[in-house]
Every structure is written in C-alpha cells, then in structure tokens.
C-alpha cells in the first residue's frame, strides 16, 4: 500500500464496479475519473456529436490536459459508449490503459465466480505494470482501509441527513473519498465528523420539498445549488458518487488471495444496481426503498445527453416513481453547467410541487 507515497502511480477508474481496494493494495492511488473540461469541444474530432456527453467531457479533459494527473486508467465494460471510448482513448490519449475489465452484469454465483477470475487476471496485469506482487494480507489491509471509509461515509450521511453537514460539503467530501488516497480522505472525513458532532440543524424554516436526484457519475453541483436555493432539499442521490458507491463493508477478515478476490467480486456485484445491470426489478426496489426511507417527494433525473442506458431506462423509472406518487423531471445535460432552459424547467417543476 502507498501510505501517502508521493510517487505512487495514480490510476483512474471508469466504474463504480471496479474494486479500488485491489488497485490500492498494489501500491497505486485509485481515483475515480471525473470530467475536468468545461466543454466537450476538444473531443469533437474523436467522438460523434451525439455520443454520451459525460464521456465526451472526460475525453476532452484528457485531450486538453494531456494526462490530467493520471499515470494510467482502468476501463470497465459498462456500455456501448465506454467500449467505444476505450477504442478512441487508445488512439488519442497518452495515458496508458492498464486494463479493460469485463464486469459481469448479474449478482448470481456464476457471475461472481466469473468476476473473481477476472479480478485475478487484473491482479496479474497490475503486477506486471507495477512490478509488485499482491498477497492476501495486503489486499485485506486495503479492504480494511476502504471498509473504514465506508463506515465514515455512513456517519457522514447520517450527519448530512440530520442537517449538521450541508449538502455541498457532504458531496465535496464524497468526491474527496473517490478521488484522493483513502488514508488522507479518511483523515478528512474524521475531522469533519468531529467538527459536526452535535451540530444538528435546528432550523425553523418550513419543511423543504424533499428531492431524489438521479445521475450517472454525480449530479452537477450547479443543479444541487439551484434546487437548494429554490427551497428544496436533496435527500438522496442515486449516482456513483453517492448511493451506488459500495456502502457495505466487504467481509474479508481471513482467507487466501483467491477467497478475498471472491469476496470482493460478490460485494461489488451486489451493491445497489446501476442501469448497466438491466435488473430493473432490483433497481426499482432499491429506488422505492430510498424514496420511502428518505421521504422523497419528487425526483430529478440529471442525465448526460445521449447516455443510452439511463435514457432507455427512463420511461420505466418514470412510470414506477410516478406510481409511488413521486413526480419526475428529466434533464438531459450537455456538460456540468445548468443552462437557462434547464433552470427554467427546474424552477417550474419545483413550483408545481407546492
């Protein structure tokens, strides 16, 4: 493990189904790839204009900044867009690809066995790239670090829902957890939790309209600011940043490397499902639970334009949530900015909830 080694390679991950523990245990700093470009302009020469705008933004960032601080990336077989981005990446970006991981799309024993095998192959590839070798002990230590992070994030969520941490700070810390080395991120989480202890918000404002946000990687910060400025309260976010991040501790206290990889495989495939799993029953059941637990009264799907898996799921999701009495607004976003037109639609939607 790196324990803040400044020379540790920083490895960008493209999916919430990729176990960060494994990369960390091999002495690398695993970070989730977020878009860094404001506009997708730089990607226009490489990807069609009607290609997932999140992927276009990510590619644009790397084309503008060359390596965007990364030493390597690991792709996952998420969808058609990621597969094609992987093709284009290898032809246009200088950051090397250390893996294309075929994450299965089921939580069955068959899929978990397959994923454990794939992770073993990823380990072999990473060992070749890093020159290190992975043992069961160091993998378990890495899992313990991330399990601690999960527990800290769960505390943080409790504080946020109780009102002692505001949404902007909550989301910033969640992003820190995904983009910094876990030891540093855990330290920051502990500090924040200590500072917010006992500080539950006793506001006498009228109860806000409670919103569920849905996004791929993360809802844009501008949208969160907008809805909260308009008197609504974000109470849950179905995204890789928040609810779909692995929240349950991975049980790996003992066992061989193979057994520990199998535990990781099972845990990651069983986390709250993303649309890539095409498991609508499980996904809608999880969203129903989220709505009920948090008392969400409305939902905003802040999806990237041309993001097929999410957009093709949308009619089912809308019908389901509306069936629960939760009205839904769909925004198809070109970039991180919330345009004037989107702002107007959000305002009208929130008005309607009165």
């Amino acid at each position, binding site marked *: 493990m790196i324990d803040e080694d400044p020379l540790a390679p920083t490895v960008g991950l493209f999916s919430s189904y990729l176990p960060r523990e494994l990369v960390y245990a091999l002495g690398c700093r695993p970070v989730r790839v977020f878009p860094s470009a404001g506009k997708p302009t730089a990607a226009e020469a490489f990807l069609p204009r009607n290609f997932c705008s999140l992927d276009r933004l990510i590619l644009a960032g790397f084309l503008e900044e060359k390596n965007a601080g990364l030493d390597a990336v690991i792709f996952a077989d998420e969808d058609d867009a990621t597969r094609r981005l992987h093709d*284009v990446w290898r032809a246009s970006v200088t950051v090397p690809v250390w893996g294309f991981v075929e994450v299965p799309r*089921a939580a069955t024993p068959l899929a978990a066995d397959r994923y454990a095998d794939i992770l073993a192959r990823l380990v072999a590839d990473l060992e070749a790239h890093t020159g290190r070798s992975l043992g069961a002990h160091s993998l378990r230590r890495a899992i313990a670090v991330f399990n601690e992070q999960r527990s800290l994030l769960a505390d943080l969520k409790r504080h946020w829902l109780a009102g002692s941490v505001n949404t902007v700070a909550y989301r910033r810390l969640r992003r820190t957890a995904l983009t910094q080395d876990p030891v540093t991120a855990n330290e920051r989480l502990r500090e924040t939790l200590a500072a917010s202890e006992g500080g539950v918000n006793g506001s006498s404002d009228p109860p806000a309209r409670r919103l569920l946000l849905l996004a791929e990687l993360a809802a844009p910060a501008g949208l969160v600011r907008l809805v909260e400025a308009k008197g609504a309260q974000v109470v849950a976010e179905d995204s890789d940043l928040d609810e779909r991040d692995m929240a349950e501790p991975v049980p790996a206290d003992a066992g061989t490397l193979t057994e520990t990889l199998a535990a990781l495989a099972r845990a990651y495939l069983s986390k709250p499902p993303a649309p890539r799993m095409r498991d609508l029953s499980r996904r809608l059941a999880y969203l129903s639970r989220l709505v009920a637990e948090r008392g969400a009264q409305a939902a905003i799907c802040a999806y990237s334009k041309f993001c097929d898996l999410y957009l*093709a799921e949308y*009619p*089912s999701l809308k019908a389901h949530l509306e069936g629960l009495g939760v009205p839904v607004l*769909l925004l198809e976003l070109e970039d991180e900015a919330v345009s004037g037109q989107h702002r107007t639609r959000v305002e009208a939607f929130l008005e309607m909830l009165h």
Partner: protein
Amino acid sequence: MLKRITGNGRPTRDRLQIGALKRLMRSRLGLRLARAWLAQGVATRPHDRVVADFFLELAARAYADRSTPVVWTNLFAPCELMWGLGLVPFYPETWASLSAILGLSRLGVEGAEALGYPVDLCTFNRAAAGLRAAGLYPRADAYVATSNLCDVTGQMLAGFAHAEGRPFVLLDVPQSDDEAAVTYLAAQLDELVERWAAESGVPYDPERLRGAIRLSNQARALALEVAALREAHPAPLRGSSMLGELGNLSSLFGHPAGVAYYRALRDYTQERIGRAEPEQAVQKVRLYWMHLGPQYETDFLPHLEDDLGAVIAFEEFSTVWWDRLDEEEPTRSLARKMLSHPLNGTVERRVDMALRHVARYDCAGAVHFSHWGCRQSSGALRVVRDQLRREGIPLLILDGDCVDPVNLQLGPLRTRVEAFVEMLV
C-alpha cells in the same frame, strides 16, 4: 395497404386505420393478403419470396397462433437456440425495419415520444416501443437480450418485461473470446435452456436443438457460397437489396427457411453470373458498405447505384463470421458464435474485417451509414477511418436514419456521395 412514407412525409393516421391494421395482423386473412401484396411488388426474386413467407409465417405464429411461446429478443441472441427450443422469436428491431418499409415507423417514433423515450435514442428501438404501445406488435411470453452491441434494445426489453411481469433474461456477453468467456456464456445459455424447459411448458428436446444446429450449418455453408459468388465482376447483386441482411442473419439460422433462403439466393446469384446479367447495369466503382441503410423508400440508394454507378459489392452485415457449429456441444458453440462477432470486442476486430472485405471484394472505398443514435457502430468511427486510411482505403461517413425518413437529409447526402464517387472513379 396504408400509404407509404417517402422522403420527408409526415403521415398521421387515424385510430380507425390502426385498429383495422391491428385486427388484420392478428387474422389469417390479413396474412394471406400481405403475402399476395408482397408477391406482386416487393418480393419478386425467389429468395425474397422465401424470406417474405418466413416472416409472414413468423407473424402468423406470433400474432394469430397462441400455441407456441413468443420470446422477444434482440438481433444478437442466437436464433438457433430459439428454434431449437421450439419457441417463436420476435425481433422488435427487425419489425421496426419492416414497419419502415410499410411506412409505419413515424407512427412508432411519435408514440415512443409520448411514452417518455428521449428523442436521441436509436429510432429502431423508439419505433418498436411506439408500435408496441399502439398494439401493432404481438404478445410476448418472455424477453431475452444480450448485453453486447446494443444497450438500448436490452434496456427497452427489460422495461417491457418489468411492465408486463414477464421473465427477462440478460445474456451477459463478454467482450473477449477466450475459453473462460466461452464457458461463462455457455453456462448462461445452459441456464436459459433449463429455465425455458421449466417455465415455457415446451419440453426440452435435445434432438430438436441438434436439428436446429444442423440446419444452421447447412444455411451457413450456402451463405458462404453466396459470399464467394459476390466476388465476381461485375457484381451480380444490387447491394442496396442486401442492406437488410442483418434481419435474416439473426433469425433464419436454425430454421428450414434459412437453408431455403440461402439456396435460392445462391442459385439466383449463380444464374445472374452465368447469364452475365448483373442486377445493376452500370458499375463504375465498388464499395464496401458498413452498418445498415435506409429501410424505407428513398431516392438516395437508386441515385448512388444507378446515377453514379457505385456498386455496393459487399456489406458488413452480410458477413457469416462464425465457425461451423458443433451439434454435440450446441450451447458452447453458440457461445463461440456470439463471442466471435466482429463487432464484439475492440474496434480493431471490425477494422480487420473491413480490410479483409475491401480486399476480397476489390472495393475502392468504404461507406459507413451512421444510423442516428447507434453509439456502438458510430462511436469509434474516427479510429476506423484513420486505420482504413492508413491502408489507403477512403471511408465516407454518412449521417442518416435507417427507420425515420424525417432524419434523412437527402440534399447533403447526395452531394457527399457524388463527391466521394467522383474521387474514386
């Protein structure tokens, strides 16, 4: 028959017409009328008649006959398995193509919009969703989709299954094609077989599955002969008439109609070559066609072929890419077939196939018809173009829509193909 859409027509149909069509499709009489209509105008060549009969028979079983379970599936699931299990497969995308031929795709696309399908999704799927909602698609007893090559169809089928409380099976198709991937996919196919036997009420008969594999192999051998005959100069077939081959490739194998179709096509092609009578009289330059083409009536393809003399010598989706299937290991060899699809895996596989076909069919250039909303085919075109260019093969990328005529900008398309063909000639 309903009025056909050509060019940029925007038809609106009243409910009476749709209601009448729904009833007609579910009756034997309607299917007989359709057969007579096809025989008169559309299906004039012997192999076209085989396919027309096949799809009408399929329609009869899916719409009118309730004795066999109907499984909705996407184009990349193995049809041999469906036939081998005694099920009737229904392909919403193929039927969306047929709806485009009949001028009904706009109805579907508009219907999908009302259901909340965003307008940037592939129109094959949007048309399918709208036509289903209009009651113009048959019932489904279950749904099966593959995870590769098309996200939208699988997601849409999962949604339909959920809404109807029907079973949905996702075949998780790896991108690699090593033995571990074959084992994983074959195990899913085995599970599917077991599940159908338990749930569909149609008992599993291994001999029927072996029979389907045998038929598939026979059709494959004939299809390979057709592919070899198409090397001829001048090209015996009009390429525009082959742009719907994907529908055949995905549904005919494992069914007797597959053997009949490829035999008729082989004989017809041979005969054209023997008589020195190519379907397309003027042939100036040979092209390799990538992805699909407009399924509705349009002046675009006749302009390319007849006015400009460009020949579509071979199409990406006419490729018989898989090895002979093994009757003794049906699910394992079907898994291999699925995994070896040239569009599965990285784009280099697709480029390799393009290079082989361009050389084999002596093409001077390639055309990619980029169907609106199809990310899998268009996403890495920059890489395809660069790699073909490195080998001296120019690629023309045309933006259009296979299903919705409203999205075909004829003027700019004509200008671009004219310039491309002029450069090649």
